[in-house]
């Protein structure tokens, strides 16, 4: 074994180090100098500083790109991972900016600290192919998120959300760890490629089968795929808006990326097939069933929701189903499709939560009826929310449409016989037709229903308007010119030789 070169390790982890140091600085400044200021000021300063730190980390990645693989994949640097990390940092900035207007807690420093720690966890998570590091960084991410979900101490719902999230999360972590320990047991290694080599064989090792199932359960929980989705509606509804936005965007990207890596690299030899009706043993049929369940459950239950946040939660479950399709296909192209989809999805969801956050502070809750006639009270916000919702529904020319088209095309192209995964693609497209119904209900409330008679004046903060408009512009731009994002993704995948 080569001696560890700590200097190189530090160099590669520098972006993460920048994020963590920023977190500490923000905390210190908040506690030392801003204790007695108004909450709004403290949030603005903390979010500003933290965004600055994230920007510095992005700059570091852009200016000093490296390609390295330390200690058999413990820490990896390549263009693809950098691209994902940049996306994560950028989304963190947006989540922080949503928080900049909020007043839900007095512990501002701690809140921003936890968001940044979660970001550091995500960055380590995507940059590793080692089970141990994956598990530790996943826990760093999860523990931060549990706490973030509970941050609105004045709201019982926030407590409930955090407890549910924590209990389910702890259980899923146990499953994941159990699966990982089995993998280590029969391959004597924690490195994904080595595990893949050990798992090659004509018959499926029973330990491997258990490991596949438990790992899929653990990761399925992280991405809120049915039937491991129970936490999602409560967390989406109860957690403070910036937290919910963060969970729904950044953490989704990181989890899906690592899900893809573990399945496509770690279980490379134990795929099986999902060609209906001969589902063969392996991880693919497991995921195919999760996909189908998520699409069905998410879309059908979303129809009945009266709270916009819960509606988004069920739509998130449905979208998790679509995105799992890309993992089922596990080709280079489908990885590109997955990244395009999850990044644009994260932008749209972030934007939606930014609007919800404003409406909630003005009207008290996120009930759909509170959006009645919003287009006349806040035209900019409503227009942007309409863009986000339509993008989620997959209406062209918005980013969500191209994401779906590309995703489904790559899934069909992934098997030699296009018909193998056709049943899943047909189900996905049929379900996205169903989804238009509940998305249109949101638009109907905003544009068709007149505002309530006793509607008060509606104040749209400038910062929120700008933030939301930027996100909406990004969604439109990426829909009209998908090549802007697609080309870097494809180039990065090529360069990383995945």
């Amino acid at each position, binding site marked *: 074994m080569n001696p560890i070169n700590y200097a190189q390790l530090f160099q590669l982890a520098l972006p993460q180090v920048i994020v963590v140091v920023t977190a500490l600085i923000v905390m210190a400044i908040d506690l030392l100098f801003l204790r007695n200021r108004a909450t709004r000021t403290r949030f603005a300063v903390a979010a500003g500083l933290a965004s600055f730190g994230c920007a510095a980390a992005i700059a570091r990645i852009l200016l000093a790109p490296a390609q390295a693989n330390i200690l058999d994949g413990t820490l990896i640097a390549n263009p693809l991972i950098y691209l994902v990390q940049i996306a994560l940092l950028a989304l963190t900035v947006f989540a922080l900016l949503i928080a900049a207007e909020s007043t839900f807690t007095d512990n501002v420093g701690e809140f921003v600290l936890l968001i940044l720690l979660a970001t550091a966890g995500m960055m380590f998570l995507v940059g590793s192919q080692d089970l141990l590091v994956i598990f530790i960084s996943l826990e760093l991410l999860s523990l931060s998120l549990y706490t973030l979900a509970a941050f609105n101490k004045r709201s019982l719902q926030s407590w409930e959300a955090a407890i549910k999230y924590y209990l389910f999360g702890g259980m899923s972590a146990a499953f994941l760890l159990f699966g990982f320990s089995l993998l280590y047991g029969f391959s004597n290694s924690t490195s994904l490629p080595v595990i893949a080599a050990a798992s090659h064989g004509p018959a499926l090792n029973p330990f491997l089968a258990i490991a596949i199932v438990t790992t899929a359960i653990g990761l399925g929980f992280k991405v809120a795929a049915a039937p491991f989705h129970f936490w999602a509606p409560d967390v989406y509804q109860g957690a403070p808006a910036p937290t919910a936005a963060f969970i729904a965007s950044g953490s989704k990207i990181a989890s899906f990326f690592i899900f893809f890596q573990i399945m496509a690299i770690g279980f490379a030899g134990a795929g099986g097939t999902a060609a209906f009706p001969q589902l063969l043993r392996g991880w693919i049929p497991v995921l195919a069933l999760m996909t189908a369940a998520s699409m069905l459950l998410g879309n059908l239950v979303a129809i009945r929701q009266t709270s916009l946040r819960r509606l988004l939660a069920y739509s998130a479950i449905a979208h998790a189903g679509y995105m799992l399709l890309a993992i089922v296909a596990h080709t280079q192209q489908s990885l590109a499709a997955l990244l395009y989809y999850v990044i644009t999805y994260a932008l749209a969801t972030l934007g939606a939560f930014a609007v919800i956050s404003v409406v909630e502070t003005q009207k008290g809750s996120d009930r759909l009826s509170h959006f009645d006639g919003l287009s006349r009270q806040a035209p900019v916000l409503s227009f942007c929310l309409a863009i986000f919702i*339509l993008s989620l529904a997959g209406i062209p020319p918005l980013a969500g*449409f191209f994401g779906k088209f590309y995703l489904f*095309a790559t899934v*069909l192209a992934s098997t030699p016989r296009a018909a193998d995964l056709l049943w899943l693609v047909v189900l996905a497209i*049929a379900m996205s*037709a169903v989804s*238009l119904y509940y998305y249109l209900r949101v638009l109907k409330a905003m*544009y068709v229903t007149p505002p309530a008679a006793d509607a008060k004046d509606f104040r749209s903060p400038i910062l929120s308007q700008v933030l939301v408009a930027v996100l909406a512009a990004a969604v439109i731009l990426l829909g009209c010119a998908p*090549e802007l994002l*697609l080309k870097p993704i494809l180039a990065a995948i090529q360069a990383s030789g995945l």
Partner: protein
Amino acid sequence: MLAWTIYISFLGAAAMLLLPKGSAALARALALLTAVAGFVIALTAFVDHRTGEMLTIARVPWIPSLGIEYHLAADGISLTLVLLTGIIAVTGVLFSWNIEDRTKEFFAFYLLLIGAVYGVFLSYDLFLLFVFYEIVIIPKYFLIAIWGSTRREYGAMKLALYSFIGSAMVLIGLIAAYVVAGAKTTALGDLAHYPFSTHFQMLAFPLVFVGFAVLAGLWPLHTWAPTGHVAAPTAASMLLAGVVMKLGAYGCLRVAMTLFPLGLGQWGFHVLGFGSWRDVFAVLAVIGIVYGAMVALVQRDFKFVIGYSSVSHMGFILLGLMTLNQIGLSGAVVQMVSHGLLAGLLFAVVGRMVYARTHTRELSALGPMNLNKVIPFAAATFVIAAAASMGMPPFSGFVAELMILIGAWHAFPALALCVGIGIVIGVVYIWRAMQKAFFSESSKAPTPPEHPLPPISFPERLGAIILIGSSVLVGIYPQVLLNIVVPALKSPLFEGLRNGSWQ
């Protein structure tokens, strides 16, 4: 230049949002200006382009990684329909002159819809075509849900969901074709010449055809049409019946039939007497003709009569497509134009001239109002439109239906007879509606309406005259369309169709 029909409509829609609050008159003027500009561009192109073959308008790489191009092109068929869209757009604005509530937004959605419709007719790249095809759905929904009447939210949602389910079917077929052909291109011409296996075409053809035909009112998937038409405000009904239903028929011809011509061939076995998808769809089209006419016969709501008549007339188009001979296919294109003009006119009379004044569409309530005396212009217009809709010369409906009937006679003699019955019922239902609404000889003394009805305004007269004039022009001199439609049908794009099952 022709591409500017799309851009100018979208720009008009965007400009609409920037107008100051409460400037309804300005919004109307801007909408009219935009629609007229689009029409002039379409007309210039129509006059200039006399050969009918495919003409590339714009072609730039769009998503090179996937082989998708921003490729606009027009041949005789698309030019004809672009011109129709121009006419309907202008008259639709004229008949919406009375919109007072949220005028800006109304015309913004209206122009967005028009721009997307132009886009569908001009797209050569299938991905692009699908993008425009789906953009149509959202403004349609809002136009009906916000400015509509009877059960508008239900009608709008039903329409949106039907459209979206139809386009989901199309999307599955397109993605499958794209992937099977090697995922290198989405250009219509390239895919049309790709040798898909017969098995694949047999599966993909009905999927894509039905997906588009949902919007063309194929029985039994037509139910969105009457409720949607009835709920919609006048201009939206005109657009729906006039051009949006044509999008479906156009998609059937341009996409489903050119991509998968072998799907029209014989199955090699018979189920219930059907030997191919062609038989199935021809029979469904004829059922649509007869069923639409019979249901229109018993309606009490004036607008439902017209709504079901649309289903009946759209059946002619689908039947024309299934004849697969040149006269039937070109007849279908002429019928697209003819029905676009006439349905627009009928909806304008019912929705704008009558309903906006009397606030009722019950035939029994309209009768006692003596409308032929009160608003004679409306009565006269309706008589002309009714005559045209029955298929009387010298209107466009006559030529179109005659061509389709001749085509059908060659292809399916038995069905042609059923169509004859449908035409007879068509005469009856429109006559009945005309009689009950305008010329009811009530035994009681005429009950004057509570408020004197406002006279027919100038924009309405102008719109009606434009529509009638165009219909007469097509009826007297159909060569104006056929000169470019027939060469387009002979172009290489339809080669597969000609080689496969053309008679």
